[in-house]
């Protein structure tokens, strides 16, 4: 059982969280002008890095999405922070 720190609720058990996506993905817009390949890249393609990984997670208990940086091998959590503009 890993412990993740929700930027709003504090440290909680992993079962309260859901992995959403790798961070840094931008929805191509206008989507209709995006090629099938670029759209598939946005939808499906990942880096799945070994080591530090920046990801978007959601704390299902409070419903907030946030950024988490963690090491995918050691499973050390390096940082959690609210989405930009969300922690005022």
């Amino acid at each position, binding site marked *: 059982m890993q412990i993740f720190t929700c930027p709003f609720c504090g440290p909680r058990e992993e079962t309260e969280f859901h992995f959403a996506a790798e961070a840094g993905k931008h929805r191509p817009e206008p989507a*209709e002008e995006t090629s099938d390949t670029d759209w598939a890249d946005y939808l499906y393609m990942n880096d799945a890095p070994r080591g530090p990984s920046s990801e978007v997670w959601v704390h299902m208990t409070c419903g907030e*999405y946030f950024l988490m940086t963690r090491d995918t091998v050691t499973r050390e959590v390096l940082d959690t922070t609210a989405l930009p503009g969300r922690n005022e």
Partner: protein
Amino acid sequence: MSGWRHDTAGDAIDRNSPRSFSFDGKQLMGFAGDTLASALLASGTQILGRSFKYHRPRGLWGLGGEEPNAIFDVAENGQTTPNTRATTQTLRDGMVLRSVNTAPDVLRDRGAVLDRFNRFLPGGFYYKTFMAFGWMRWEPMIRRMAGLGRLDSGHRPPADGPQVNARCDLLVIGAGAAGLAAARAAAMAGRKVWLVDEAAEPGGSLRWRGGEIDGKDWRDFVREACDAVQAAGGRILTDTTLWGAFDHNLFAAWERRVGASDRHWRIRASDIVLAAGAIERPLWFTNNDLPGVMSAEAALHYLALYGAVAGRNIVLATGNDASYPVAEALARVGCAVTLVDAREKTPPPPEGVKHLPSARLTRAEGKRTVRSVIVNGQRHEADTVLVAGGYTPSVHLHCQAGGKLDWEAGSDSLVPRPGTSKLRVVGAANGTFGLAEALTQGHVAGGGAGTAPQAVTENWQLAAMRPDPALPGRQWIDPQNDVTLKDVKLAGQEGYRSVEHLKRYTTLGMATDQGRNANFAGLAAMSELTGRSIPETGTTTYRPPFAPIPLGVIAGPRRGALFNAPKRLTLEVEHRAKSAEFREYGGWLRPSAYGPGDEAELAQDEARAARETVGIYDASPLGKIEVIGPGAADLLDYCGYVRLSTLKTGRARYGFILGESGIVHDDGVVFRLAEDRFIVSASSSHAASVRMILEEARQDVFDPSRSYIHDVTAGFVTLSVTGPRARDLLRAAELPKDICDDEVMPHMSVRETAWNGHSLRAARVSFTGDRSYELTVPARHGAALHGALDAARDTVSGRWIGMEAVMILRAEKGFILVGKDTDGLTMPHDLGWGGPRDKRTDEYLGRRSLFTPEAKANNRRQLVGLEVDGDTPLPTGAHLVPLHGARRSLGFVTSSYFSPILNRPVALALLENGRAKVGAEVGTFHMGDTCRARVCESCALDPKWERLNA
């Protein structure tokens, strides 16, 4: 007969409390405090089991979890526990022990004949043969021979199965000298310490090796340390196996209790000290597997704690100083002891012990048990051979936590590399085999101030002992799985040289001792055979569990009603009072039909009644996700496939939510209660995920301060009233008049009103095609609404209807259930909802994916209805196939029922290019039979929608 009970020795037993038990039918006696192993040893029973492959006789070897041989099926109070390790099981009166994998019993085991063929059965022999006629031909024979004990098929786990989460400042694993020193130091500094030990009492090897600490008896030190732990708010868990190190400093422990269920602990620790000690290695010589060959450390353990003496005429073969006190203790109780030391330079021999330095034991002899040994070419009579091949530190948990190991020649062992795990490893687990240094290491690791507890230093010198390939005959490396040095050699010869290959090819280390006896020897042997160092040869990965753990302890109480517990309706009691039968739908326990009677027949009756008069069903599990705020309409426009900003206040609209992949995620109705307030009525099993889709868009795409999402599903009861006389029922129940007025409340409208002094939300939406009212009240008023509707029910001959009837009603109208009538490829235009895809120009979730080449293809599976001749509905799950040409799947039947109102079957299906095939015939394939069906519109009843306002 070699073991016996000394008259006075034995700290742990109560000689005034005899305990009787039996082993393979033979009645035996022990004392309270005995383990099965000590009682059997004292009784003189030598052959306790048989090895796995050759069925060689096996005797007691060790003192704890490393025991590979003394394993029994133990019956007690009508329950049998298979594969119980004698060394760790306390003896209780009346226990019935049965040897495992023997027939008829351990002494006359017929499988022993296999040993005669051993030369044809080397490690991995089965990879080379049993190929003729296929493996299945041979497998049943192999299966019958395999396995140890027998499962008690009547066994039921305890009802409770407690599992407890705990936190501590410092977790100390192992309550021997080093662990106690660490716990004591930390507790004296005010830290909350949890001290965990496998044994029944703290003390570790102090309990049999004894010693003075700070000039006092070791018992005083143990007491002092335990008192300190408790005084600081810590806890001492004995009879507890710490079996797993997991991420983020989480540890799992199994606590064995008498008179209560075993307990599963999840302990989260800030700091951890590992002081798990070490276990003694065997020695390798010809026939080293004979019963009567035993660990020297274990012999001292049984003597000191239980007064159980291993034999009378004992040869002790060693290469280290730790065996000298063992020889001394045995000589003191009257044994004839010959101490065979491989080293030239040795400590002085204890009094009364025959001492043979520079001597090598090369062979044990005896038919079924040891009778003599060969030392330096000379035969010596012996009824017991104690062996001491050095120690293997118990580094498992350090490695489980990611720690690395280094080879240390001084202790002849792999020891933890400091800093590679979060555990600080001290004492024998760290390769430190001396009391004084163990105490110091523990004290320092516990953060102790001042000087560490003092003891007379006795740093054991030891020589490296290794298997010798030059010896004739067989030397056992893995006693349970019958892996010999020759098997290791063969594995090397065939190229299985990495330790993992060696393990997998020979099964070395795969026995129930988890490699505690075999792994080091296998590693050392392979390293010698291949001319590589031990670190180069490598070690196998250590994974949980540290010791075998009952599955029931890990699973805990999550069984029966507590396993994936379904959600319950607020009105469950009320429904049961109406004889409802319950079934699970989308995670909710809901009435399937109102009995008594056959469910399918009841559903037919209920569906007919709902079409003829009124049916009432509990629709509370429907998701109620409130979306509130000035940005709510924009948010819903983006998340919904159908535009919602154009929805008027007080009205409802049906639509879909898609994933970004364009696949239909859910369908449902959205209500607009006010300019800035919507309710998304998600389907019951998708409510949670729909909420998260909305949340993600709210936070990621929009200004989150302009909308708010609130899932209030559980706070309300919704009863749905459907049928031509639905309005009459509402009137009879004296519900507010305005909702019965079609001018005020036309189809697809919603109204918040008041009833009996609390709020009532009424909606004209229909999942049946008939006039329907969804009535929603706060959960605490649900019973009142139920009562009012029920009281008025008879005036219109209405019925409570279950979900099975609702399924029929919605299928008659061609209304889908997402996940049943759709699959992971279904897009909205496959369901006849191409409008928004064609017309919407604004962006919405999933839109781009609706225009991929595949989404535009004309062979997509589309929703259609099917008609058949006769009264038998198509089987749901039947496939659709071409009537001519090669057979292939064109789709499948997703829903199929007999419609009581139409008096014929109705069915929904996903069919390749199905819309174009309406009116045509298609084949239906089910379990080898092909029939015909006509493709039709999905709506089978009332295609002009006249019943909605009837």
